[in-house]
């Protein structure tokens, strides 16, 4: 491998800085994504984990300006998208949701697949029509070529006899097949980034592992980055190069996947890992005590303080900053202030 390709692989595709996406309800403001910063490199898979309601989906929807209306809004921060390395980036956060530039990015350069394959295809159009629609929207080809491309994509995602399947309606396909169709549709324009929002949560485990394998396989073929959102740490272990852990709209820990499992820093990450069962382990599962605080009335200090086994005085009153622990690892926890002092 020469220097050039290493550079290329390490080059940034997406740089999110201090993203704030809020929901304005009558009862109060929900800060679904609150000061979120992370990068996605070309060709890597970034895992996003957290409990339901922690802001994973909203963060990902913000990246393509599809925050649920009318209450949601990106109120601050930058989402820098580097279409080609070396060229200046586009700030997606500044683009209008309905603007032409945004629509040219959506589906074409950043594609998305969803949690519910049973409902994420329109029931009244054939799967072919829905893939062709995407292709015609972004590529300058004729209908016939688009159809050929759709068949090719169906073949690529492992759907048997694609020439027939292309004319079938979603209701005649199983959940796993539909998720394959969704993947085919998302990849039909050869995107730089695929956002996968819990793509296997609704599938049973055998189908899940097939889909994950397919995604890993296609990632290499298409040379794309993936943001993989899930609450399932096992899946993260199989898919992600790096992981961000989210809690109540904040990133609490960022690290390489191995570090998340074996060298994690934030008490919340630890709590998550302790609450997954392991086959053969004769250990009691330790759930995280308490429950997620009401997002409309968050406490003053660290949002995790009421559930944290290592809570200290300072945690109650002051929000912890993000500490850089190693090159690739950060944790948003007061514990590392102490460490810093001890080192000094």
């Amino acid at each position, binding site marked *: 491998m020469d220097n050039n390709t290493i550079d290329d692989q390490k080059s940034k595709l997406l740089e999110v800085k201090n993203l704030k996406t809020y929901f304005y309800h009558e009862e109060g403001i929900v800060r679904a994504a609150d000061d979120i910063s992370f990068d996605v490199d070309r060709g890597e898979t970034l895992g996003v984990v957290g409990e339901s309601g922690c802001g994973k989906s909203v963060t990902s929807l913000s990246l*393509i300006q*599809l925050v649920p209306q009318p209450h949601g809004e990106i109120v601050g921060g930058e989402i820098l998208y580097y279409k080609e390395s070396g060229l200046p980036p586009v700030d997606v956060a500044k683009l209008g949701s*309905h603007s032409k530039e945004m*629509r*040219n*990015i*959506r*589906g*074409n350069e950043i*594609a*998305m697949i*969803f*949690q*519910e394959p049973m*409902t*994420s*295809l*329109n*029931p*009244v*159009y*054939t799967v072919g029509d829905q893939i062709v*629609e*995407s292709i015609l*929207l*972004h590529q300058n080809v004729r209908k016939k070529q688009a159809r050929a491309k759709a068949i090719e994509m169906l073949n690529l995602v492992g759907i048997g006899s694609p020439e027939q399947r292309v004319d079938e*309606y979603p*209701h005649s396909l199983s959940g796993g097949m539909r998720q394959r169709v*969704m993947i085919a*549709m998302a990849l039909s324009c050869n995107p730089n980034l695929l956002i996968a929002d819990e793509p296997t949560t609704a599938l049973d485990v055998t189908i899940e592992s097939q889909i994950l394998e397919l995604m890993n396989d296609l990632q290499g073929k298409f040379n794309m980055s993936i943001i993989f959102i899930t609450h399932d740490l096992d899946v993260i272990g199989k898919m992600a190069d790096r992981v961000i852990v989210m809690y109540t709209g904040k990133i609490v820990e960022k690290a390489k996947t191995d570090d998340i499992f074996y060298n994690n820093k934030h008490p919340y990450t630890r709590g998550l890992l302790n609450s997954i069962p392991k086959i053969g382990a004769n250990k009691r599962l330790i759930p995280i005590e308490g429950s997620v605080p009401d997002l409309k009335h968050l406490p003053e200090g660290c949002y995790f303080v009421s559930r944290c086994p290592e809570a200290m005085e300072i945690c109650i009153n002051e929000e912890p900053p993000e500490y850089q622990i190693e090159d690739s690892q950060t944790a948003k926890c007061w514990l590392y202030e102490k460490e810093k002092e001890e080192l000094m």
Partner: protein
Amino acid sequence: MKTFLLRRLIILLPLLVLISFTAFVIIELPPGSYLDTYISNLRQQGHDVSRAQIESLERRYGLDKPFHIRYFTWFSNFLRGDMGYSMTQNKPVNMVVRERIGFSIMIAIVTILFEFIVAVPIGIYSSIKKHSFADHSLTFLGFLGLSIPNFMLALILMYVFYSFFGMNVTGLVSRDLLGEPWNLTKILDALSNIWVVVIVVGTAGTAGLIRVLRGQMLDELNKEYIQAARSKGLSEMMVVLKHALKVAINPLISTIGWLLPRIISGSVIASIVLGIPALGPAMLNSLLEQDMYLAGSILFIQAIMVVIGTIISDVLLAMIDPRIRYD
């Protein structure tokens, strides 16, 4: 689809026989007949009606025969295109229907078009702007439209147009064209006057359709495939019209079946108030006066319309929604 249509048409025949029989029975249910009223009227006016006269009248209208024979004669004549004789109007039912059915069909078609043309855009708009001021205003107007009775609306319109603009909005065809046979001028003339009837008859239906479509659209717009369609980069217009509407329109299409006859019976009072010689007023009269052949024929024509309407909406549904298959 062909087999489905064929099967439906085959089932149609026994169904229509059954309907015609039921219609006839219902009309025969009230005691007495047209003749009883007629004779007592004559007697009250001081005429002497002899036994022989009564018998000749009974024979003339076929009232001397037992029920099943009368039904059979009426139905078999109906199939041959002869609907019998109207006793109140003193002319063949065919003639009464021919004079009036043009108005009825015209009102029905224009009203259905009106309802859809007005309701679909408003329903879509209300759903994408849900809970906005415009949506609430339209909802308010919709409930108003639903709750004002037809005839009341007709009276209000007549009053408003007469007192403020000096316009007489009754009738459908200009007076000088009334006796003329139907031709292009007469149709155009009728169409230019039809809007009052259409508003009167169609307002409630439009309001209903708006509610249904708004609700359906809101359901669909919350589904994941809509978000998926957006994530492809489609414009919001395409997302709403191509993706959400095509699924949401479904229940509206299935209303076409009962829209046709509802408009005929719904326009009865409006037609009377506005003085329009459509089938509705004739039906009401014939029922009041026990003019059995006229009443039976109009009821039967309505039933045929329901059946045709249902087939039309079934076919349209199958064309629009691939999940619906009939074979």
